[in-house]
């Protein structure tokens, strides 16, 4: 499933990131790598961005971007 499908509070492991190179670079630099644990902290109202926690960093990303990140609970 994709990262966007997680419920607030759920933790999952990143399986793969399927996106263009520019976004991939940015996500990698932020710590998104296969095998890393990621927690969905909360979702904004009106299908706004997601707040996810990876390591010690909290990151905001849009739903459209989270749909490109495959995770496993």
């Amino acid at each position, binding site marked *: 499933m994709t990262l966007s499908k997680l419920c607030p509070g759920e933790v999952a492991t990143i399986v793969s990131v399927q996106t263009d190179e520019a976004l991939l*670079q*940015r996500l990698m630099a*932020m710590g998104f790598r296969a095998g890393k644990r990621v927690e969905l902290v909360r979702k*904004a109202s009106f*299908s706004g961005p997601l707040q996810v926690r990876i*390591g010690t960093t909290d*990151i*905001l*990303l849009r739903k459209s*971007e989270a749909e490109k990140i495959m995770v496993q609970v």
Partner: protein
Amino acid sequence: MKRIALLGMPNTGKSTLFNRLTGATSRVGNWPGITVELLSGKILLGSEMIEIVDLPGIYDMHGFSEDEQVVRHFLHDNVPDLALVVLNAAQIERQLSLLLQLKQLNLNLLVLLNMADEAKKLGITIDTKEMSAALGLPIILLSAKYGNGYPEALQAITSALRANLPGMPEKVRSQLEKDEHIEREMSRVLKQSVQIPARLPDNLTAHLDHIMLHPWLGLPIFFGIMFLLFQAIFLFGQPLQAGVNELFGWLREAAIAPLLGSLPPALQGLLLDGIYNGVATVAAFIPLIVLFFLFMAIVEDTGYLSRAAFLMDALMARMGLDGRSFVMLLMGFGCNVPALMGTRVMRSRPLRLLSMLVIPFSLCSARLQVFVFFSAALFSPRAAPVVLFSLYLFSFATAILTAILFKRHYPNNEPFVLELPPYRFPTLRQMLMRGWHEAYQFLHRTSKFIVAGVVLVWLLTNLPPSAAPASADTLAGILGAWLHPVFAPLGITPDLTIALLFGFVAKEIVIGSLSVIYGMSGPELSGALVQQLDWVQAYSFMLFTLIYTPCLSTIATLRKESNSTGFMVFSIAWSLALAWLLSFAFYQAARALGY
């Protein structure tokens, strides 16, 4: 002169350190190989003057964002004698990658581990000796905000500068692409020297975010905070601005005018009403800018700006903007100039340009003065507030319309992946530094342009010398008559056309210019306007005033911030066209309906 480059990821306190290092001596400047301006400052270290350059915060040496390219090109064409790498100790496990990438470039490096206090609170312990040995680099612990470890850092910088400069490898790019090596290095160094607790303690940030980002309470709190900020800028800014105006007026009467008394009247007029008023116009913006950025420093440095982006993004994304644009748009209701400068927090150029195209439609406090006067003069006390409110609605509507129309021309290529930093409170020093830097940049970048514009309008309204100032016989009057066929379909009279010409300089002087044109002021002026105009004409004039170019200072800021005269011209042309179309539609429709 030896040169130091400051490098690091965003949110590492790099700029705070830069301000601490350079104090108030910094300036913006151009560098070989790059098109954006960078802040730099000169300081005395040991017995030598050293130049320090603040590079944009980046996540990655081989990313594709504008900032990452700027850093690569800068390092390529301006090899520094020392690169100071600022790392956020609380995020060390992620930040090490950038350091290792930089290490591969064979630069002379010194590592500053900032926010050591925050890392400690999170239970992260870092053995700097071990880490220093594992990396083969000197490491200094530091709190840039409070200055702990600062003397040690200066000492280390001084001695690192004495070291011989290693050569810069030719094939930077190919060196940069060895990601795998970096990953292995990262885990080796981390394993030896860093311990991170399995689960982060529930800290203050989590508790605050629980309320601030609440699904139902988040947005009302956001609007409450914005309302308070706006009120505060208005409340403190207006008297300060009036005070500066009074000071300049007093100085003029008491000192400058008597001094110039012996000169011919025309030259006196040029010096006083042209150049001196131009300088006063610039000066009147200074308190607003300082105040605005004092508050922006709080909003930004506390980390609330990222939270605002989280809350507002769902709505703004549909307009091709993001949540941060919305904050700037709201701030524009105080004054457009600092709001335009504030768009610098957005690192994607198309996103910034679209935001800058939208902000001038915010009904600023100067325009409000015109509307208050007109609506009081031409509308009943019951209708006047409705008129004002409708103008605010038009302000939002034109901004949204502009964003939707042009979002395809400014496609935002930067992914919306933002870091959400923990809540921190900026020190007073940080806030004051910010206000001072922005005011300095405004003066440095726009003052000549504004003074020249004020002088130009003075010349238009005072030449030829035989004509009475601002009368129909002056160049402005002739221009007004010539433009009459354009403005007649909007119901705007030639007198009001001249006032619009003044309004191009600043909306603050529109009412003043009408006083000059009619030769009367206050209630008398209101009376004269009532006799000449009906409410349809007055509303059409207000609509035009709302939508067309806000003021010269805004134009000057647009040009400097976008670094493009073409963009400035486009912004002026679009707002003029939209102003004309809407006023035309309103005036003709109202007349057709029999008003």
